[in-house]
């Protein structure tokens, strides 16, 4: 066939033959190898994993119809608030809706972004979290409830700020890069950021993976005691963990004395991290939620130690499913940034200069965020006036709350925290196996216990009836 002018949508070469890229050596892989050859190291970027994990997307709700009674929207109230962190008598964090803004550093984010998030959180009655770089005064002023992170690097860590915070969060790891430290490339270590972190400006800032003053959960118990002594026992202590060996980690965090546990699944975002780590470490948030809840139940600490889950929470539906699985609240990072304007189709020429387009931009690590979120450049920051940005985030938070209530009411609950696994069904065998929720169209959860039970039932039935092995799945 000649000419290559066939327009059937199938990629063809000039001679008309179908082009056949290899799965192993895909165009992405070819580009990856060749850029690593140039760079002499692995690649870093922002945001999170590119491949699709098993996700809340694979679950569906089964609201009331005939067998149960739904609640009216608008008229019949659906409670959303929760208090967390009171296990050891500290003043709890009060969430009007079970959503928090996750830790993102001033340094990775611009000051306008941090201020906007703080303002939105205050209006919505929730909390924000500092990040790897310390507390920004603008954020403390803007955010009524500020959680202060204690990170391995301790960049900008100030005990006075700790005492000004409403809670402290020991960061053991995060979902995007568990078990590894971070790197903030020199372009983002501006003079102001550098001074705040006591670093020479423009260096590639490497963050350690371990905390400098303790190793392991038995030592962390003493660190938690130190934080309580420093704050006169007044504030809750959170422990944040990247989702890996969740049952063990949750139990250990409980034993070490955590008031709140934050589990960040592999979908979690970051300002800059190795691409390979994002896609190949950690487990999905949905799976982590199930394991964390089971671990808390085993420790008899469900509801005593609060559970927040994060990583790929996109909307109120994901939040509702996380709550139904047993989480006390969800935390959003990337979603909040997107509400701010991340990947919005404006300033298109600046996306182009970065070599990307809106919708595919994960170039936070360059420090040249076209919309002024993940940058320290004054001209770019000016594109994100805090007030308007706060409005957008508040709007998004409200939408999440409305969705939470909508699903709860539909399932006949007058409190979103009454959502339960029984309100869900799994759309795939995989989701069923991960969560223990029955597969749609069946009464069966694809878990080892269910198989064992089914076999036991079948054998019991066979003996009772004197029949041979019964037909059918169940």
């Amino acid at each position, binding site marked *: 066939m000649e000419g290559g002018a066939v327009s059937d949508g199938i990629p063809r070469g000039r001679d008309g033959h179908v082009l056949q890229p290899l799965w192993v050596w895909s165009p992405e892989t070819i580009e990856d190898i060749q850029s690593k050859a140039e760079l002499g190291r692995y690649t870093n970027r922002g945001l999170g994993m590119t491949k699709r994990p098993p996700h809340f997307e694979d679950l569906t709700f089964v609201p009331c119809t005939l067998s149960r009674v739904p609640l009216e929207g608008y008229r019949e109230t659906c409670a959303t608030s929760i208090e967390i962190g009171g296990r050891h008598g500290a003043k709890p964090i009060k969430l009007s809706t079970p959503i928090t803004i996750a830790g993102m550093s001033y340094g990775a984010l611009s000051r306008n972004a941090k201020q906007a998030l703080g303002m939105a959180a205050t209006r919505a009655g929730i909390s924000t979290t500092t990040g790897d770089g310390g507390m920004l005064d603008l954020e403390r002023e803007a955010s009524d409830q500020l959680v202060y992170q204690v990170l391995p690097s301790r960049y900008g860590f100030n005990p006075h700020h700790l005492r000004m915070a409403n809670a402290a969060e020991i960061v053991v790891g995060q979902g995007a890069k568990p078990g590894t430290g971070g790197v903030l490339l020199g372009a983002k270590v501006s003079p102001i950021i550098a001074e705040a972190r006591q670093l020479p400006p423009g260096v590639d800032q490497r963050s350690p993976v371990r905390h400098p003053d303790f*190793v*392991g*959960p*038995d*030592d962390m*118990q*003493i660190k938690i005691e130190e934080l309580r002594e420093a704050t006169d026992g007044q504030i809750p202590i959170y422990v944040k963990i990247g989702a890996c*060996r969740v049952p*063990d980690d949750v*139990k*250990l965090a409980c*034993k*070490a004395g955590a008031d709140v546990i934050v589990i960040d699944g592999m979908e979690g975002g970051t300002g800059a991290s190795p691409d390979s780590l994002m896609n190949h470490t950690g487990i999905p948030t949905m799976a982590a939620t199930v394991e964390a809840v089971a671990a808390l139940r085993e420790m008899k600490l469900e509801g005593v130690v609060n559970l927040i889950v994060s990583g790929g929470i996109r909307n109120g539906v994901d939040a509702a499913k996380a709550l139904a699985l047993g989480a006390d609240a969800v935390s959003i990072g990337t979603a909040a940034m997107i509400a701010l304007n991340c990947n919005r189709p404006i300033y298109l020429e600046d996306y182009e200069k970065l070599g990307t387009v809106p919708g595919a931009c994960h170039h936070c690590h360059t420090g040249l965020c076209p919309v002024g979120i993940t940058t320290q450049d004054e001209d770019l920051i000016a594109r994100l006036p805090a007030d308007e940005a706060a409005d957008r985030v508040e709007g998004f938070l409200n939408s999440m709350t409305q969705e939470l209530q909508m699903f709860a009411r539909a399932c006949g609950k007058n409190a979103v925290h009454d959502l339960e696994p029984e309100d869900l069904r799994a759309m795939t065998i995989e989701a069923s196996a991960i969560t223990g929720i029955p597969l749609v169209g069946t009464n069966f959860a694809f878990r080892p216990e269910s198989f064992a039970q089914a076999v036991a039932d079948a054998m019991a039935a066979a003996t009772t009836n004197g029949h041979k092995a019964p037909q059918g799945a169940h």
Partner: protein
Amino acid sequence: MCGLCGFVYKDAARTGGVGRVLHGMLLPMGRRGTDSTGIALYGPPEDGSFVLRARIEANSGTPERVLETLERAGGVRDHAMEGPNLRARVAYDGDLGDLTDAVEGVPHVEVFSIGRSMEIVKEVGDANDVERSSPFAAFEGSHAIGHTRMATESVVDVAHSHPFWARPFPDISVVHNGHITNYHKLRRKLENQGHRFATGNDSEAIAVYIADKLAAGESLEDALRASVSDLDGTFSYLISTADGIGCARDRFALKPLLYTENDEIAMIASEEVAIRSVDGDATLEPRELAAGEVRWWLR
């Protein structure tokens, strides 16, 4: 993760209240882990016999069967049951692996230790819970090691608690703080050499590893030094033998371990607070072991 402690009288002729000392060392370290507590104590050996410590599940009706098994093996010189805990001195000179198998062939029985002088007691909870279950604070002996546990990956029960007896080698046990990350590889290697494991706990592998080397004729010093390169992960551990105590710290000094000594005694612990509970006047100043350092005290 955990708290470790050890105590030894340096003079081969000297014995004393090691039970009381360990009890005092373990209590303040209970904060490091309250899942379970265990101690390996070394008392005076008796010729031609071994002392056995075992846990027999309550109301299982099996203590008699255990005693019968021991009688058949060689004869029971004395025995005592304290709740579910059996202590028996057995006249025996055969393979300890066989004896352990025979005893554990009786249902609901777990052997904690068999040794000429070593006796292991363990219980869920802290040192006071052990004392209530298997009184040890009055134990007179030459040396002892102890452990308080915060379970990391394996189950919280007495079976998975330290100290681990390096079965079937008499009088060798280990207590460990940390996590051996090449456990499975190490275990497979040792199993291929014919060793057996009673639990899935990584710490047990250290006991078997050291015992294997000692049985091959290596000195305790050499075995300890080799362990620093052969074990991967985080570890501070104490190993006790009939003759004394050895300890080692990983090459990155990740888990705490300090020691102190004078001409008469040596004490090792994860935290100074354990030492202070025994030496309240602080006459002995502790020192941290260096990264990759090993130390040993043989009577």
